[in-house]
């Protein structure tokens, strides 16, 4: 469930926790790797991805109930 933190590349700057309007990172401790406390409260606004200084340290994973549906070509 979104967002997903790459613990190896996260530098613990806390920008994602500061940006999140839904406060899904609630309980963040300064200097530590961000933890997603309330993943189901994500709005997918992407703010945490935008502010993260390390490419790929935060990504959004779209939960299955939100998958976009489409018509296959040739139908």
């Amino acid at each position, binding site marked *: 469930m979104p967002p997903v933190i790459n613990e190896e590349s996260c530098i613990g700057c806390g920008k994602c926790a500061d940006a999140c*309007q*839904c406060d899904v990172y609630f309980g963040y401790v300064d200097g530590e790797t961000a933890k997603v*406390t309330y993943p189901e409260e994500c*709005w997918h*606004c992407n703010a945490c991805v935008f502010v993260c200084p390390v490419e790929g340290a935060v990504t959004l994973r779209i939960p299955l*109930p939100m998958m*976009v549906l*489409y*018509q296959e070509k040739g139908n």
Partner: protein
Amino acid sequence: MAITLKERLIETDVLIIGGGIAGLMSAIKAAGLGVKVVVAEKANTNFSGAGATGNDHFMCYIPEEHGPDVEPIIDEFQLGQQGGLRKRNFIRTWLLRSEEIIKLWDDWGIPMKHNGKYEFSGHAFPGQPIHHIHYAGKDQKSILTQQALKQGAEILNRVMCFDLITDQERVMGAIGINTRVDEMVIFKAKSVILSTGSVMRLYPASTTPSWMFNTRLSPTCVGDGRAMAYRAGAELVSMEIPILRCGPVYFARAGKGTWAGVLRDPDGKPVGPFVTEPDNKYGDPVVDVYQDVFMAYKDSGRGPVYMDCKGLSNDEMAYMVHWLRNEGNVALLDHLEAEGIDPRDKPVEFRSYHYELFPRGGVYYDETGKTSLEGLYAAGDEIFGGISGAAVFGWIAGEHAGHRAKETRIASMDVAKVNIEKIKAKIEAIRNRRVGATWKEANICLQQIMFDFTGEIRSETLLDAGLAALRRLKVKALDSLIAHNPHDLCRSLEVLNLLDVGELVFITARERKETRGKHKRPDYPFTNPQMAKMIVVKRVNGEPVLEWRSLKD
């Protein structure tokens, strides 16, 4: 050990509750007048509210483009998706002040022009004047935040205000909590501006009732302003008229506005009469006038309906994606890319967000931002008005609230003291209770009741039964809500606010004995021209009092 909330007192000239587009515009204007301004923001103004990571349409009147007469643009506006609920004078003010705001935003670094000129697009019908421009709003919130700070406004992030302080005659401040530590914040102010946005989470989410935060607008905007204004005795209007929107199915943080395809049935036949080829200027406006098209196709065995972008050149596709990015839909675009969905080859299913029937109406404010209560102003989506409504009336409310603060002395809050103590006790009870209902439990229960009893179909008997159920839930919630930390406490207070807002939807929906738009009453199946008026509701001696009021100037 029992948790007690620390108290913090803040005194200011102007208190702004909610730092979205409207609240920040109010802050910039009021602080520019030289008064002390504090913005209490539940999240972080750099990324909060419906405008969080961007928007791309701005409703406006530009005399150079539209001609010297604003009246035809008002007519056009009344036909569109936001029309019909506001007095003509109000819309005239909105349109006449819009160009000034566009120029300010452009100066501040929010690009309002595309390749050097205004790009008129969307929310209109081919052959008629377009009253929206595309703008590149992805950084709008941080730019407005910087402007507010530059003018000297103080921004308090992570403070949720949930109640106003009044002495029965005027508003004197507000009570909030810190959403991260156990602290109650009491504000004393000469003027208070409500700008808390829309009402999400009152009904089940968009197309995914099991996924509560998958809402079209911000799921943290839950009608806090409407609830606290009502409890303080302010007038609310049009709470019974719901909004229905559409967009990509299952991914709600989007909406249709920027998509440039044709809505087609599974055999490729357009479902509307307006466009037959993708059109970046108009999109497919069929859903602005026929929101039931998706359900109608489903129910008649012809569904689903797809947004088909076949025919867009690479440049045209890049153009559409550019605006979707500025609208903050990057997560959706990334998802489409990851799944290999090019909407030119794979038409994306669209649907009306038929669960999410949030009220268009809310805290009544006039063209100066004043509400019916002395000292209380409102702006933005306290009544639904979108981006330009928020920007224009945020600015205007800031101006009037600021001037009032200059002429007013700060009031003594002795009369409010007892009430503040009561509220504090209520909050501490929620924080200290060990067994009971989580906010989510109460929120889900409320959503069930709202959708089942005042949802797509409303009738006297349903509304009576639903209102009784909601009132039972309200008592239970007050007696049993638990919050293990300040975050859950914030959500619990949100649900208590939603319960009040929901009750007003029931009460006003029962009063409107006709069918109007998405307010569908099978017991009164036609639209009654005599009821083209607003229903006003306010609290008098603890009870809701209703009044019909003309929409004429």
